[in-house]
């Protein structure tokens, strides 16, 4: 043991990537404490998670914000919150990544204004705004306006940043969220690069854009990608993407400066494959996924953030996040990873795989171009249909056993986990008082500001929105005038209107034969419909601001496959809209899907709205991230069924839906199919 050679001298080691943890919750003050704690533990950058009202441009006291304030991220209602969030964190020196999209110009404006308040030299600001609206329509769901004005705002952030805060990354083109919505590696590459092209082409067309400025803009584009469990393929994906980006930058935009040609990307590793069952196994998944994006020096990530072992259970506690932070630190500082050049260069196996991926991605990029480009392909639903289709294939493979997921469809026997025995159930519970406290802070801000200055700032914002002038200067003026997030969002909503994206569920082909179990379910659906006089109708509803659509989509596709007539109007509906749809469509059953943690509040509201339209008795079921305690209470309160990620057998769920409907109508429930 004592014979082992000491590690190579530090001088020959590469610098590690930026080590981050995506976090934020409850309030600006609580998140500030969390960030300072993380920095003290050796984290080298900040990654801010905002709550859903902030991401969708609503104030904390907006009816749609109910139950969501401070839940999945930090609520930022005005510059006062922004200042608190970075209290004692010098912004001139910090590197801050903000996961913000539709309201990116606003949060960037608040950040700049907060830095100005700190007396910082804003030209030195470093960090990232995600600012990729395209993938919001396809996966992430926090879009507000239609594509055209949204893309213009994206461009405004880029041109402003390139001129005024040149070290800032004004757009992080995301393929991460596409993989989380089911994308294959080639789809991930193709749609991300098509998105980058769409934005850069828009910039190219702007008045005053010359070659040098264009090259600088290309150089400021960074990427945010996913890394799944097939880590060798994922490593190849990064090499493929880097090669393709180089070609696009040179050939399409004429960039020649090597520095501006660098393919810069950050990573969050895959979470879709992290399981609720035997959740401790997620740790080795996370480690392997990370390996894929740090292994190859020439395509190594610049920044990495990891989910926690309890990802599928709920929000991580500080200790859970610390564990993931330590995973990165072990990789970076204990292993010899950073001591070598690229260990994959020259491998024919790797090269063949990379070429394969490039060919596949190029074909898919051509398909997008054929649709009229990424924006059109989003509007027409083409890309979304492809994603839902890929995810359906994944779910079918899990159901059939072709895709092994340990703990889900193989090796399911387990000892009880000691990790889950604490009184908190192994997850972070956000204090229910967060919402009320945030509303109080918001009211304080409103009462202390100069109303005339607010009105003037908003007029200027409205004028800039309408005229096409860069939205940033007017937004920064709004920030200093203590305009609120809801006022900024509301003003632009008035000018640009709102949008509802295609759901993609109409594209998946239903098979003639679905196997014996599906045939059995189809028969039951048909017979039950006959007994009740008309085909069974199911409304799938996503109440609140939650954008997690995968579950709703997969249930919808499966339900149609099982013979239901399915109504699904997409994400972010108010409980009233859901009750209205249930009435107008004459459905037999409502299935809600909530993953954002606000299921208790939303379920209560939906039932109130149903009663208001005379449908108090209609059976309701719920799926999503629902802690067992809550599930118990919901069932007690009359929710017919509650499903969570461990319920991966969709045929069984369909069978269950039939049972619920039969029981509700007093039909014999004993007859079984799947």
């Amino acid at each position: 043991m004592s014979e082992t050679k000491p590690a190579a001298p530090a001088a020959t080691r590469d610098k590690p990537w930026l080590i981050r943890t995506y976090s934020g919750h409850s309030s600006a003050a609580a998140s500030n404490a969390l960030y300072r704690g993380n920095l003290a533990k050796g984290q080298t950058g900040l990654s801010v998670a905002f709550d859903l009202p902030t991401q969708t441009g609503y104030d904390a006291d907006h009816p749609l914000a109910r139950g969501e304030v401070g839940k999945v991220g930090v609520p930022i209602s005005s510059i006062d919150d922004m200042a608190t969030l970075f209290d004692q964190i010098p912004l001139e020196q910090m590197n801050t990544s903000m996961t913000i999209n539709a309201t990116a110009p606003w949060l960037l404006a608040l950040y700049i204004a907060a830095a100005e308040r700190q007396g910082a030299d804003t030209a030195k600001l470093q960090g990232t705004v995600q600012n990729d609206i395209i993938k919001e329509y396809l996966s992430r769901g926090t879009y507000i306006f239609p594509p055209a004005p949204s893309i213009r705002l994206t461009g405004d952030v880029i041109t402003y940043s390139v001129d005024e805060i040149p070290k800032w990354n004004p757009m992080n083109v995301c393929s991460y969220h596409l993989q989380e919505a089911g994308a294959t590696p080639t789809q991930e590459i193709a749609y991300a690069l098509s998105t980058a092209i769409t934005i850069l082409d828009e910039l190219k067309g702007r008045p005053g854009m010359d070659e040098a400025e264009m090259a600088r803009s290309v150089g400021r584009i960074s990427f945010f990608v996913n890394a799944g469990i097939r880590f060798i393929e994922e490593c190849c994906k990064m090499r493929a993407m880097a090669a393709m980006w180089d070609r696009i930058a040179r050939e399409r935009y004429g960039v020649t400066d090597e520095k501006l040609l660098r393919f810069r990307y950050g990573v969050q590793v895959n979470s879709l494959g992290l399981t609720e069952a035997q959740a401790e196994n997620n740790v080795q998944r996370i480690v392997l996924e990370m390996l894929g994006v740090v292994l190859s020096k020439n395509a190594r990530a610049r920044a990495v953030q990891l989910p926690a072992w309890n990802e599928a259970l709920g929000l991580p506690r500080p200790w859970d996040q610390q564990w993931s932070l330590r995973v990165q630190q072990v990789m970076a500082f204990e292993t010899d990873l950073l001591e070598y050049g690229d260990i994959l260069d020259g491998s024919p196996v790797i090269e063949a795989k990379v070429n394969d991926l490039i060919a596949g991605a190029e074909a898919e990029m051509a398909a997008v171009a054929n649709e009229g480009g990424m924006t059109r392909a989003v509007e027409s639903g083409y890309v979304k249909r492809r994603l839902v289709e890929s995810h359906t294939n994944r779910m079918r493979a899990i159901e059939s056993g072709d895709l092994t997921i340990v703990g889900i469809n193989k090796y399911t026997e387990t000892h009880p986990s000691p990790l889950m025995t604490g009184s908190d159930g192994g997850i972070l519970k956000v204090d229910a008082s967060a919402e009320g406290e945030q509303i109080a802070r918001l009211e304080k801000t409103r009462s202390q500001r100069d109303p005339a200055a607010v009105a003037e700032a908003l007029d200027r914002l409205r004028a800039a929105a309408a005229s096409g002038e860069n939205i940033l200067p007017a937004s920064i003026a709004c920030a200093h005038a203590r305009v609120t997030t809801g006022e900024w969002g509301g003003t632009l909503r008035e000018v640009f209107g709102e949008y509802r994206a295609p759901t993609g569920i109409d594209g998946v082909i239903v098979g003639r034969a679905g196997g014996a179990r599906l045939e059995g379910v189809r028969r039951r659906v048909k017979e039950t419909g006959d007994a009740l006089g008309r085909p069974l109708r199911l409304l799938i509803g996503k109440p609140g601001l939650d954008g997690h659509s995968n579950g709703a989509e997969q249930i919808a596709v499966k339900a149609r496959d099982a013979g239901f007539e399915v109504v699904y109007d997409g994400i972010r509906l108010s409980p009233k809209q859901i009750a209205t749809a249930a009435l107008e469509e004459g459905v037999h059953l409502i299935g809600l899907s909530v993953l954002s943690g606000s299921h208790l509040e939303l379920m209560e509201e939906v039932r109130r709205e149903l009663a208001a339209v005379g449908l108090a008795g209609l059976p309701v079921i719920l799926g999503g991230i629902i802690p067992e305690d809550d599930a118990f209470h919901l069932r007690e309160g009359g929710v017919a069924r509650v499903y969570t990620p461990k319920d991966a057998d969709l045929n069984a769920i369909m069978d269950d839906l039939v049972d619920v409907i039969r029981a509700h109508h007093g039909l014999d429930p004993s007859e079984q199919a799947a």
Partner: protein
Amino acid sequence: MTHLAQPAEAPASLAAAVAAGDRGAVARALNLIDDHRAAAHDRAAELLAALPEDRLLGAGHLVGLTGPPGVGKSTLTAALIRHWRGEGLTVGVLAVDPSSPFSGGAVLGDRLRMITPATDPGVFVRSLADRGTFGGVSAEAWPMSQILLAAFDRVLIETVGVGQREVDIADLADTIVFVAQPYSGDAIQVIKAGILEVPDILVVNKADLGAGARRTLSDLAAAIRPAEEPGGWTLQALAASAAIGTGVAETAGTIERHRAWLADSGHLVERRQTAPLRWLLARLVERFGRHGIGRLGGDGAVAERLAEAPTGAFALLGEYNRLLSQH
């Protein structure tokens, strides 16, 4: 939790509530029409017979919207709803989507384009699967349209994205709007002459996408022949962008002019009076073939029976069903 069937609602009072625009009643009435159990069918027939005849024959407007998949029918529907709501008119919509031939299931996706952030009690959207019926609408569309006609000022029926021939919507709507795709790029798409015979109004949508819409419109306009009879209706063609909202007021205006023409020329009442027969014959052919109608004595005999009971096509279908199903 078992929820036994509530005592059946009297069809006559349900009809009165529908005519008063009660949204819950409209929903229950549509459910009843959809219910194909024998007892329900009889009650649905009573319900339809109890709807105010003056409304069904002379009031409101039944507009059919048809055209190829993805052309923008739902988006145009949404735009027309906004327009009509702006004029204070209430709107009922029936939106038909295709059923899967294998599972019988369907994704009812049109309403997604029609919902607004704030719910509006003056708008009612019911989706319908075509349930294997060819021709772009389902068997339930006509009786359901009668419910909506009794309750709302304007009724819009969006068909499945159909080819250019099978347009059953012509059997039941007062005014047919065909939404056409503009020429795209340099692909020369010849619009078949056949489609010009069905609609009353032709809207080339997506005019915002460039010169294609204008070219398509002028080609179409050149192919339109004026009405043969004096005072007849000549097919109107216009361009619109349902997404942006241009041409929508003109489309609504043209729809309104067509309605006025129908009313003045007596065609409105005539179309409404003959719709039940067309619907009944189509259902009989669908279920029993021409042969079945032959057993009933042919189209003429069916028409005579219906003339005796003008509001009773639905009831008569039940009767014929029973008759023809007995071997």
